[in-house]
């Protein structure tokens, strides 16, 4: 019974995604069965589209910048959370983590109001980057919390005891030991930002990110197979990045000889 339930659940979850590559390689503009034969021309059309390339570059710029910013913020927050006790810590951490569960449409709307009406700031990729940093930081903190949790505080004290300063201890001891967590957080934030649509749609100006560009293509039925091809590429890249993140995290734990505190995935 449970086995059947799991199978039905997994089919329900992954069947639509499995259809992406099916129609991406289908030689026909209508997204329906029966299939019309095999082709790779949609991938060619995708590669030859300058607007799509521009959107991809925008997305990469946003994803790289916001994931680096999120991880820098996450490092500071996670270290403070695990190492220090201070008044209001629980409240502060709770508030930082809330964007994790807030409906994105609410975040997007309120950010749009703040940026345009109150700050009177022109919409651009930078407003998207700021918003993506906001939603990615909780993920970075969650991953880095686990990294710092697994790090014996006596190890940092031992380095200071042996003559190092706080800064050189961070560079020589802390950073190498939490590096797998940092890489994992970077990769996951990158994926989240790359795939994010609602906030990017609200806050981007004239430069669309990839998901926003895809949405704009949906109005033209003959472009649908190209979107299928693009979707296939995105799914493969996302899965590859997440696998890499988790593999890297486990390798780091093994190298440090630490127990697995439970990954984010």
């Amino acid at each position: 019974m449970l086995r059947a339930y799991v199978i039905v659940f997994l089919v329900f979850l992954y069947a639509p995604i499995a259809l992406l590559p099916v129609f991406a390689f289908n030689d026909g503009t209508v997204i329906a069965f029966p299939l019309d034969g095999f082709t790779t021309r949609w991938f060619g059309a995708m590669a030859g589209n300058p607007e799509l390339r521009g959107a991809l570059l925008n997305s990469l710029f946003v994803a790289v910048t916001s994931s680096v910013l999120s991880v820098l913020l996450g490092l500071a927050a996670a270290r403070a959370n695990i190492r220090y006790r201070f008044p209001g810590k629980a409240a502060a951490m709770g508030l930082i983590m809330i964007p994790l569960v807030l409906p994105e449409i609410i975040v997007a709307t309120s950010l749009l109001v703040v940026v345009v009406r109150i700050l009177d700031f022109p919409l651009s990729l930078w407003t998207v980057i700021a918003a993506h940093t906001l939603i990615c930081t909780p993920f970075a903190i969650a991953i880095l919390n686990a990294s710092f949790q697994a790090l014996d505080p006596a190890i940092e004290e031992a380095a200071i005891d042996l003559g190092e300063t706080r800064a050189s201890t961070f560079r020589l001891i802390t950073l190498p030991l939490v590096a797998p967590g940092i890489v994992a957080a970077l990769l996951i934030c990158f994926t989240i930002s790359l795939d994010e649509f609602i906030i990017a749609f609200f806050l981007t100006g004239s430069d669309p990110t990839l998901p926003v560009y895809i949405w704009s293509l949906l109005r033209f039925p003959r472009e649908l197979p190209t979107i299928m091809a693009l979707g296939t590429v995105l799914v493969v890249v996302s899965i590859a990045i997440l696998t890499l993140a988790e593999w890297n995290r486990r390798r780091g734990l093994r190298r440090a000889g630490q127990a697995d505190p439970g990954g984010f995935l």
Partner: protein
Amino acid sequence: MKDTSTEAALISLREVQKHYGDYHALRGIDLDIQPGEFFSLLGPSGCGKTTLLRTIAGFEDVGAGTMMIAGQDMRGVPANKRPTHMVFQSYAIFPHLSVAQNVGFGLRRRSDLNAQARNTLVEDALDMVGLDGYGTRAANALSGGQRQRVALARALILRPKVLLLDEPLSALDRKMREQMQEELIRLQRQVGITFILVTHDQEEALVMSDRIAVMFDGSIAQIAAAETLYRRPVSRRVAEFIGVMNFLPADLSGDAVTVPGLGTMFADAMQSQATTDSAPVIGFRPETATLLFDGQAAPDREAQGTITEVVYYGDMTYYDIDLNGAPQPIRVSMRNVFGRPLLDRGAPARVAWSPGAMTLFR
């Protein structure tokens, strides 16, 4: 016995206080530790011994009072500028470095050394703790006892004035622990560095230390050499914490002390006097009384009773004896020397004892 005059003290603490919020962790610590001494801080968990050690290391600030190390006031001196190095309870081995990189970590700041000199120092340090040839291994591939040795070598390579050891043997099994105890004593004699050991294990403290400070609730109850601490505890609390002691209620009238089951003796004739928070008692160690076998006569006093329990330890046997008239049984330990019989539970017992082995707590 070391000289205990204050001018020679390497570490000198006066009225040291430490608060964590409302919690009073150190309540006025006065302490002098001599150069080359093996000094132990002994007490139950939560007594402040680790806080005191971390204060000396510089990981905690002194709330009030003064701390001098080698004649220098330590107020405002951070941990990385102090002439102390620490061996942590978890060993705190750097897991991403090799054994040699761990041991040589403290040499990074020594610009006067070239690579050759560094290697020699690392090899000497590894040699000293019996890990020669382990330098290239990954530090996290070592066993508990080996990590312990790496931590020791890493802390000793810089020849600190003081080595601080925070429960260094608590993670090892019993055999390994006893072996490391002896090695630590040997090492301390060899390098001549002052060792300060924190432990909750009274046996460990007695075996290893020149002097021991017994701590309760953030205060030092007694500072003494092992033998003094064992034989002349200053309070019932210290006496109960160190080893086993029999306690029997004492009735005081003038100089005369009457103990049910033992009889009357004079306070002057007793080994020592100490304090207690509750009713007066006399106390004595299990090995200071002796069971008398057939025909033996007591050299001093004799008491009668019944054996209620026999606990056999191989080299020793512990007898619980209900003395006639005493409110609770006492424990007597006997060495199982060749030819000595074991007595059975329920058998009558004659116990030889002496007022000279008693401590009066009042």
